[in-house]
């Protein structure tokens, strides 16, 4: 085990819950409080520690103050939405923040659910209280102080600390083998049981293999509020603006983008409109406009409203790529080997294409003329063209760079291993063995 180097100078500690899950969890406040009680109890069983729930009037002065926060919350450890970082706690000490324990409110906090159906509040709380009492991360297995999420631990009323953690906490606060903390008054020794049947709002869990994301061939790619969404079939993956993948597992498009028709299994193109941040989805000859993750009333509408005609006069029936070029703020739609430019404004939801369009997609030198999709991304507003499992970057504002080398989408965006060179490839160097 590893100790943080500080501990509480007393063994009688007060705890309080300053806020409860608000966003995604269906746990009641009583339920949360009971789970936290049991999570503290595992640290006081067989030690000299004692925990008392602080009354409301002194909740702010408790040693261990628990709250559910999201993103930036003024402690230097911002949360990052669902997945990624789940919680943190501050080591014991004299500072106001010492002992404070924060859970990311953007997680779906659960209790007793199957692994993979949310984040188990009890498991994470036991770990974080370990920090609040003076333990650091441990590499030992088993240890509740391993830094990675370990999933539910079973019956939380019977959970006991692994030996590594027990020795650590007894080193700090002493051994008392005869003391077990009773449950809070008004509660039986058993926690209320969760409903056996899935709730009606339960979502379908996608489970495609990892090859899906590593094989590329994305139908659409979009930069939405700085995050990059990769759509493929009925699924999507999301890359945060920090560059990290929210999950290796994809989400079902229809579970997140609410209002697309049943059976939606391919998105042609998506982009975020510059004028009002609405999100436009193109599927076949129709388009949908979303406000955040919900479709606006009155959609879908027909693509012909965009007024796109090919150079030989045909009405465009499908959009293959769409993006707003950060370099000039114009919107570009690609179809076939042509593209159209739009100057969007607040007065017209769908303005006509700019004059002199369409133009040939081959004007964008060195990149595929029929890309899967395009985004403008990065501080410099570079343009990223995606096709199959590769992407090409045109530097800010450029259309005709001297050389544009394709890079691997799987490796750089999807956290897939670098492909092993095919031994038949003429580019593979020969390895000679010399037994001299």
């Amino acid at each position: 085990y590893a100790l943080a180097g500080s501990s509480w100078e007393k063994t009688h500690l007060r705890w309080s819950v300053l806020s409860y899950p608000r966003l995604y969890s269906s746990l009641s406040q009583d339920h949360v409080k009971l789970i936290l009680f049991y999570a503290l109890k595992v640290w006081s069983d067989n030690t000299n520690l004692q925990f008392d729930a602080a009354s409301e009037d002194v909740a702010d002065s408790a040693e261990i103050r628990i709250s559910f926060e999201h993103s930036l919350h003024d402690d230097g450890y911002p949360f990052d939405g669902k997945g990624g970082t789940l919680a943190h706690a501050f080591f014991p000490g004299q500072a106001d923040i010492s002992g404070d324990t924060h859970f990311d409110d953007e997680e779906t906090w659960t209790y007793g659910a199957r692994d993979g159906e949310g984040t188990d509040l009890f498991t994470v709380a036991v770990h974080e209280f370990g920090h609040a009492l003076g333990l650091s991360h441990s590499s030992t297995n088993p240890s509740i102080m391993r830094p990675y999420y370990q999933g539910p631990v079973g019956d939380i009323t019977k959970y006991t600390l692994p030996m590594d953690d027990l020795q650590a906490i007894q080193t700090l606060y002493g051994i008392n083998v005869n003391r077990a903390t009773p449950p809070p008054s008004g509660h039986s020794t058993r926690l209320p049981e969760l409903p056996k049947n899935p709730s009606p709002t339960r979502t379908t869990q996608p489970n495609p293999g990892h090859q899906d994301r590593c094989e590329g061939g994305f139908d659409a790619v979009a930069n939405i509020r700085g995050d990059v969404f990769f759509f493929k079939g009925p699924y999507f993956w999301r890359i945060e603006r920090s560059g990290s993948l929210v999950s290796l597992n994809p989400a079902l498009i229809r579970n997140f983008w609410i209002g697309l028709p049943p059976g939606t299994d391919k998105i042609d193109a998506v982009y975020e409109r510059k004028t009002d941040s609405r999100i436009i989805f193109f599927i076949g000859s129709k388009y949908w406009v979303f406000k955040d993750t919900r479709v606006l009333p009155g959609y879908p509408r027909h693509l012909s409203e965009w007024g796109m005609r090919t150079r030989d006069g045909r009405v465009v029936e499908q959009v293959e790529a769409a993006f707003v070029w950060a370099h000039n703020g114009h919107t570009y739609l690609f179809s076939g080997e042509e593209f159209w430019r739009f100057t969007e404004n607040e007065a017209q939801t769908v303005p006509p294409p700019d004059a002199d369009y369409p133009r040939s997609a081959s004007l964008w030198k060195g990149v595929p003329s029929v890309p899967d999709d395009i985004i403008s991304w990065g501080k410099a507003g570079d343009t990223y063209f995606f096709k199959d499992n590769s992407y090409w970057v045109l530097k800010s504002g450029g259309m005709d760079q001297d050389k544009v080398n394709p890079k691997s989408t799987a490796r750089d965006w999807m956290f897939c291993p670098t492909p092993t060179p095919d031994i038949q490839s003429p580019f593979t160097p020969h390895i000679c063995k010399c037994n001299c």
Partner: protein
Amino acid sequence: APAPAPDLYSRGMDWLSRYGYLPPPDPRTGRLQTKEGMERAIRQMQRFAGLEETGKLDEDTLRQMSVPRCSLPDIVGTEDMLRKRRKKR
């Protein structure tokens, strides 16, 4: 502002710095991480996580880096502590 273009190497560096395996970037000195330093940090991370120590950002390592976790660093580096002490003085 949107982040710079994605790159596996820089993502790995970011993760390793965040959890204490690499010293945080210092904008004043513009110090670069060496290849050896990066490999050492990856090995340390792999050892801590119970993975095979390859020193490379292989599939298992990247998968481990994507596992949800606690925000606190795994390693409290001596450099970090020295810097804090210096600041205090």
